[in-house]
């Protein structure tokens, strides 16, 4: 029983990170109908940013969150203006090829610049923290990552659902021509989605350095989960992604308790069930 409780708690904590990674993916899909296959590479770049902030400047991963967020937000803008924005309105295949190309390019670039070796921040500040609540033990890095991820996810949800600019982004996503009749430039809104996705993945990358290592393929496992989370939560739904992130985390944690080698299979099985039973996802509308 204690073990089960512990697994659920662990699952919720990592699930929050899945949610944050998924938010940018679902935002870009929901507004632009573009699947960003380079999303995991944005997380990876965020991790490296945080690592070098530590190795060159001595900054703890917690302190490099703003730096990583801003750097990857700029990277997102660059990806939009340099590549994705140039194939808007072309065939969906062109868009897939562009984001897939960005994935290969960024992974290769990381390997070229920083070698395939893993890079770890040895003793982040959060590693010194540890809580015991009854029988459940929770580590500082896990709590810090979860709290940071929930705050960042909440901030994106707030921006999209409660602010004027967020409403304009959603309007451009729903009907770009109608939005332009309101004087809203849809392309600017698309670019903003990439900036927000960059911000979210950059923050996620820095948070992850509290407990994970950076490497050219470090983003892969998280983005795989993010795809599951996006589909599970409903394509385009940020609240759905947050909810689904937590659920996928718990499913993974609980299955990991009984059959550690099947954690990934569990997440994908959950996805399969959702697709068969409720194809639009938890909170999706289409």
């Amino acid at each position, binding site marked *: 029983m204690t073990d089960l409780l512990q697994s659920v708690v662990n699952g919720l904590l990592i699930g929050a990170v899945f949610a944050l990674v998924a938010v940018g993916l679902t935002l870009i899909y929901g507004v632009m109908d573009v699947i960003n296959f380079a999303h995991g590479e944005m997380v990876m770049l965020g991790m490296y940013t945080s690592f070098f902030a530590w190795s060159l400047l001595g900054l703890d991963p917690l302190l490099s969150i703003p730096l990583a967020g801003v750097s990857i937000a700029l990277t997102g803008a660059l990806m939009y203006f340099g590549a994705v924005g140039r194939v808007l309105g072309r065939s969906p295949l062109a868009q897939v090829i562009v984001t897939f190309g960005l994935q290969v390019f960024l992974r290769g670039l990381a390997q070229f610049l920083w070698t395939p070796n893993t890079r770890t921040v040895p003793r982040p500040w959060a590693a010194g923290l540890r809580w015991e609540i009854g029988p459940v033990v929770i580590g500082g890095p896990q709590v810090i990552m979860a709290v940071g991820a929930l705050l960042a996810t909440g901030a994106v949800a707030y921006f999209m659902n409660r602010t004027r600019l967020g*409403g304009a982004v959603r*309007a451009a996503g*729903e009907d770009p021509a*109608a939005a*332009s*009749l*309101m*004087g809203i430039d849809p392309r600017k809104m698309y670019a903003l989605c990439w900036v927000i996705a960059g911000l979210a993945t950059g923050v996620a990358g820095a948070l992850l350095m509290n407990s994970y290592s950076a490497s050219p393929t470090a983003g892969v496992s998280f983005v795989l989960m993010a795809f599951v989370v996006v589909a599970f939560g409903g394509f385009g739904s940020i609240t759905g992604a947050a909810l689904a992130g937590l659920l996928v985390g718990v499913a993974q944690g609980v299955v990991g308790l009984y059959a550690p080698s099947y954690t990934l299979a569990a997440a994908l099985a959950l996805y399969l069930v959702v697709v068969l039973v409720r194809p639009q996802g938890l909170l999706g*509308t289409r």
Partner: protein
Amino acid sequence: MLTVRDLHVDYAGVVALRGVDLRVGAGELVALVGANGAGKSTLLAAVSGLHRPVRGTVTFLDEDVSGLPAYRIARRGAVLVPEGRRLFGHQTVVQNLLLGGYHRTAAEREAELARVYELFPVLAERSGQRAGTLSGGEQQMVALGRALMSRPKLLMLDEPSLGISPKFTKMIFEVLAEIRRAGTTMLLVEQNLRAALELADRAYVLQTGEVVMSGPADELAASDEVRRSYLGL
């Protein structure tokens, strides 16, 4: 206020407009009439920047706006209420209205919102409801209100009564008359000819992408030839 000269537009590979000339003076209400497929909607789409003209110019407030993207033309004050209303169905009534005033200051938006609620009291009651769940007539009110939020200098309306009950149509036309009294210039495409010609100062009759007749609305409405040949009355 608006001058269209020798406008040619292709739409979906077909010639939709061939050499249209049209003028709307400040404070005027001009109607565009003609059968389905005559090019009325295409003309509004070209003026508002949704379609690029192949040839010809659109001059708005003494500036050439032909070929500008729609969002720039909208910001200059030529605003289209598109056919089919095109609301943001997932957002609430008040969110839709506020998007219409996107480029104005917060104080201006508040003032304009109060005015729209005065014109359409039912929208104040429904302000928190998702626009997609409203009836057709109510949606048309939101679409019109949303356009008014920007305080347009030229208001273009594409079939405001399409698919709407007679009761709501009457209400919409009453509001249009009121907006017009307030001095807003309008260009109206409307299948309900009687209502359109009653309201308009002047009208243009379009047929297969060309202006075949134009003049004061009451004269066109009275002309037997127009009624028979072009308007199917």
